[in-house]
């Protein structure tokens, strides 16, 4: 099966029902995408398919098709994506486990809505759970990322 991940073409020999998450983590070694719940309830496994945020833990690899997969490792070459910079500037992360998935969800949101409202941010990120609880900083950083994107 052929996959394009972070701009690179891969040929993988896996069962076609295997969730994309495990192809990324266990076959391709891209461990930035996290396994949280395995049943699309926590958002830690969020990646992009052609720019859309999906939960990779319930996305069978056969459903990817020709769509381009982007993971946290491929969001930017050097951590310079506005969401990554805003997250760093405002010290959003604590333990950091949920952040790769959350950052991917936030990046997808800004692509759709360059100037999101608080309600847009809450709606787009409500499926990304965090046990540390920096939700106020997350919202502030999403606004900051929007400013960085289009000053």
């Amino acid at each position, binding site marked *: 099966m052929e996959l394009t991940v972070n701009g690179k073409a891969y040929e993988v020999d*896996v*069962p076609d029902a*295997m*969730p994309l998450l*495990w192809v990324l*983590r*266990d*076959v391709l*070694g*891209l*461990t*930035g*995408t*996290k*396994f*949280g*719940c*395995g049943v699309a309830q926590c958002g830690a496994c969020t990646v992009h398919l052609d720019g859309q945020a999906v939960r990779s833990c319930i996305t069978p690899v056969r459903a990817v098709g020709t769509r381009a997969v982007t*993971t*946290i*490792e491929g*969001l*930017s070459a050097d*951590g310079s994506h506005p*969401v*990554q910079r805003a*997250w*760093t500037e405002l*010290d*959003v*992360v604590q*333990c*950091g*486990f949920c*952040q*790769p998935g959350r*950052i991917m969800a936030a990046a997808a949101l800004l692509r759709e809505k360059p100037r999101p409202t608080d309600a847009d941010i809450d709606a787009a990120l409500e499926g990304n759970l965090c046990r540390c609880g920096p939700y106020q900083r997350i919202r502030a950083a999403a606004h900051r990322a929007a400013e960085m994107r289009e000053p």
Partner: protein
Amino acid sequence: MPPESLDLGRRDFLTTGAAAVAGLIVGFHIPAAEAFARQAPGGPPRALPTPVEVQLKDRSAWSRIGKPAKRLDSPEKVTGRALFGQDVRFDGLKVALVERAPVFGAKVVSFDDAAARKVAGVRAVVQVPSGVAVVADHFYAAREGRRALAPTIKWDLGAGGALDTGALRAQYREMAQRPGAKAGAKGDAAAEKAGWGTPVAAGRARAAWPCTRRSGASWRRWPRCRLPVRRFACTAS
């Protein structure tokens, strides 16, 4: 060297033994921290004399306490480079998932591993104290193997099989009436505790706490797969 054997009352001790203390406080690889401390100038912290007078730094000279500090770990955490316990990879790594006993104290009577072993990538099916483990090349194979295995396990539920929330609450209420060890006396404890109880679900961890272990001469264990791994701890092994 257990932490309680360290005397933390002296600045020169802290300076000399800083490496050992850092290792002990964050709680990993104590042998490595000890070895480091033995090589430190001045020798191991234990060799230092017991302090007589403790000189504390004046508040005006504080440079860190009371001031906000920028996080140092953001760059690797926002790029996916930060390594968590579940991200540890090494040659020969297998993934094991355990089908656990449905109640505490239950025992495996029998199981049939034929269907689990047919799943591509499953390497072994092994009985362990908490249930039956499926060992596989990757998580997906282990999970599919465990799904195939689960219905074949026959359990002896034992005494735990009869327990439910109602029975547990009744048991707690009964136990609360028995005399216990006395730490102090304040108010009417007997009346207070009559209505106490804890829902069983509240005491249960919501997430699994798996761990990664490398066996052999270079063995090492990475507990708690959702916690960040300290890089220098990894390279120390």
